[in-house]
């Protein structure tokens, strides 16, 4: 269980609110000015604090690798990414401290102005597909079917691997494909030169 500051604030707000509401429901006090003020805190202020902090904590939790791996069909991906002996791109990047506990999100998130929203909508689609198609499938069946929706964009790789670094440009293929890479016409992984991100990755 991961508890950050927002989660603690959410829990504190929930406890404070619950205490007030249980007191109101059990003691059934007269509706005096004090009772009204207590209800404003118990129904309004504290729950709103919990909702705000809890939502933020929830959004942060959805970025964690354990969250992505909590559906059984994602177990192989989680196992490979966290395998210290794996030489797959996902595992190599997961071992990078910059990716931390959010290696799935870092590579699979959409960036840009509405990146977070687009990513969350994609996540909802995953949940829908899991509930309607993959929930009762065995791991072997699911593994054979799951594939990435769109080719992995090179722009995601280029967020860290800048194409303007001299060392990057020293590689002949990089220099030759610079224009296509920057235009997003050529990918780095998958169909690109660096192979699949996961050992069993399939093309869309």
């Amino acid at each position: 269980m991961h508890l950050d500051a927002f989660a603690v604030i959410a829990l504190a707000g929930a406890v404070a609110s619950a205490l007030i509401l249980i007191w109101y429901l059990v003691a059934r006090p007269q509706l005096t000015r004090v009772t009204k003020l207590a209800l404003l805190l118990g129904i309004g202020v504290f729950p709103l604090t919990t909702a705000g902090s809890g939502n933020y904590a929830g959004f942060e939790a959805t970025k964690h690798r354990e969250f992505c791996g909590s559906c059984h069909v994602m177990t192989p991906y989680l196992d490979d990414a966290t395998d210290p002996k794996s030489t797959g791109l996902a595992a190599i990047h997961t071992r990078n401290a910059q990716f931390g506990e959010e290696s799935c999100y870092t590579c699979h998130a959409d960036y840009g102005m509405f990146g977070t929203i687009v990513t969350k909508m994609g996540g909802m689609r995953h949940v829908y597909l899991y509930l309607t198609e993959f929930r009762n499938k065995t791991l072997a069946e699911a593994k054979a079917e799951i594939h990435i929706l769109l080719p992995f964009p090179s722009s995601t790789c280029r967020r860290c691997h800048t194409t303007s670094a001299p060392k990057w440009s020293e590689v002949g293929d990089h220099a030759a494909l610079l224009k296509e890479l920057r235009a997003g016409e050529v990918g780095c992984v998958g169909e690109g030169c660096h192979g699949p991100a996961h050992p069993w990755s399939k093309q869309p």
Partner: protein
Amino acid sequence: MNKWLRASAVLTLVALAMMVWSVLRPTPLPVMLAMSLGQAVGTAAFAIYGYIVLVDLRRIRRDARRARELDAQDRVVDVPTAEPAAAKPPEPES
């Protein structure tokens, strides 16, 4: 009014339970429930509370207005009526 406030309190507790569950166990089902159903239930509870507050405020204003009207009526009743004209002193007989 108390019945609605109790309903609002119970709904708030239900919403809080979902949010706490999502914080303590951040897996897809609790997180999605908290962010959809939990939010809806919590908002409904707060809306009920807000409605009760509005009704209460209107009642207080109505009572205050009625009290002012009654006060004004009392003042009208208390206004002393015009005193009868003093009897003219008899004219001196010539």
